[in-house]
């Protein structure tokens, strides 16, 4: 399995409980859907989510050249992080 698909799985597993709470299925979330606009995260819980993503995947993400809008979707995270 490629790193990208492992990463994607971890990513989805972290989003899943939050999406469930909203009655959404992770598989229904479009790659371009903005996770904050969907209501899955608010601006602060999104930060917490990024932190746990880093811990889970043992990576350090450099956001200094990115705007939140560029990594607020599943597609954006995959593009900018893997």
């Amino acid at each position, binding site marked *: 399995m490629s790193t990208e698909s492992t990463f994607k799985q971890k990513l989805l597993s972290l989003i899943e409980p939050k999406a469930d709470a909203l009655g959404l299925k992770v598989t229904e979330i479009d790659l371009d859907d903005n996770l904050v606009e969907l209501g899955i995260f*608010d*601006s602060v819980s999104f*930060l917490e989510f990024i932190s746990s993503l880093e811990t889970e995947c043992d990576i350090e993400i450099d*956001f200094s050249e*990115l*705007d939140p809008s560029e990594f607020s979707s599943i597609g954006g995270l995959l593009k900018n992080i893997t």
Partner: protein
Amino acid sequence: MTSPFKYSLSAPQQILNTASKHLNSCALFVDQQAYTYQQLSDDIQQLASFFIENNIKETSIAVYATRNYESYVASIAIMLSSNRYVPLNPKFPVEKNAKICQLSEIKYLFHGKHHSESLDDLITILNPKPIILKNFENDTPSSSDNTMDWNKEAYKIDAKKLEKIKSLAQPDQIAYILFTSGSTGTPKGVPITHKNLASYIHNVASFTTLDHNDRCTQMFDLTFDLSIHDIFVTLNNSASLYVVPDQSVTAPAKFIKEHKITHWFSVPSVISFMKTFKMLKENSFPNLKLSLFCGEALSVDNVKSWEIACPHSEIINIYGPTEATIGITYFKWESSFNDLEFEKDIVPIGHAFSHQEARVMDKALNIQKENESGELYLAGDQLSQGYWKSSEITDQVFIHDKMTQKTWYKTGDIAKYTEYGLCYLGRLDSQVKICGFRVELGEVESTIKKVSGAEFVCAFSTPLKDENATGLEIFISNHEFSTLELLSLCKKALPSYMVPKKIHLRQAFPFNSNGKIDRPALLKVLEKEYVN
């Protein structure tokens, strides 16, 4: 020391004057579009002319304030035409917006291009219903059939009208009413006059110089009075106001770099957010010349991180309640302070603006000695006359001192005077007694933050709302330590009665629309637990 403030022009009038000298400069950059001073000024005049033609004056006008171009035009035009600007917040529960409309006696409601379902909901529950002011391009909320178009040919401006517009707003008229949440749950309206606002703008000019090359941030929701600073200080001084999109407000690093922002203004929490995202690297923001922080305690730790990212920026901590018009004391940070110990590791709030007063006093209005803590009282021409139509609450906190013939506003904040000027120590109502010991919750929070490295900590005494509390519980944002490890850290750093009895580790913290920790929301979490 600057000369005493003499009122000559209202802040919105000053915008028109500035605009006439800088027609082609950029006034506003919002939703990826730049608007020149010419465009902005034309639109403000058009809307003000609409108010005049329809004899709408000294009236409360609500703006359903998403941060779009029309909202800025409306806020300025409403004040300019001697009406009272009352911003509503689409992020508030509909009941709160309705309460604000009811209390401020809203007759007209303005909304920008995009209206949302929440606006329909608001209009549905309002009684009497306001007249909706719309642009002809706008669609109208379905629940309202009472609308007026303001963007009509009939309201086109001419020289005569312009003169009339410029002469309308008077110093003692109310420019805006903002609502702060009262302890009883009913919001309190704080009316600010043109004179209050013009005095504030005059006073901040002593440490904020701006010209047409400067670019200032606009990050605050329009219901937060710091947004009034953004709009009027920037546009009175021919600079450009850069509206940071909602999405980027918590971590606007790229926006700041991309648009070469020169002047920053935010709550200190934004520094914490940006740290989490590792956005504060050495010289990350070389173009920043001035950074202002206000709205909550600024920690030394955060300032140090900010200094590294913005080596060319002055850093100023501003303090002030809405009742004293945006800000009334300030403290200029110097990098040589790095090794100094400040009270609780919090940056001082410094000294009152010139011709304003800030004093630490006891209940009998006796001035406290240096290094003795007491309640902070404020006086000066930035002070509001009192709460909107509630003389009872006004009398409780706007205290007339017969000796000095001055009115003092009782802030509810604890402070003390030190060699660096005033130091903020916390809220009076966050001072609790635990097993007889007087405890400042803010102190517990800052100590735990320091030892654990957590960005957010919020403490409550328990049993809740009991005068004789027996312990503390804390909420903490944390990824490093277990509850047990945190407890042992607390035991080392705090006297035993301040060590939390229970620690709630939280992934996410609730924040209010002003970007501050939402204490009432956390209190509700605890209350629920106790009921169960």
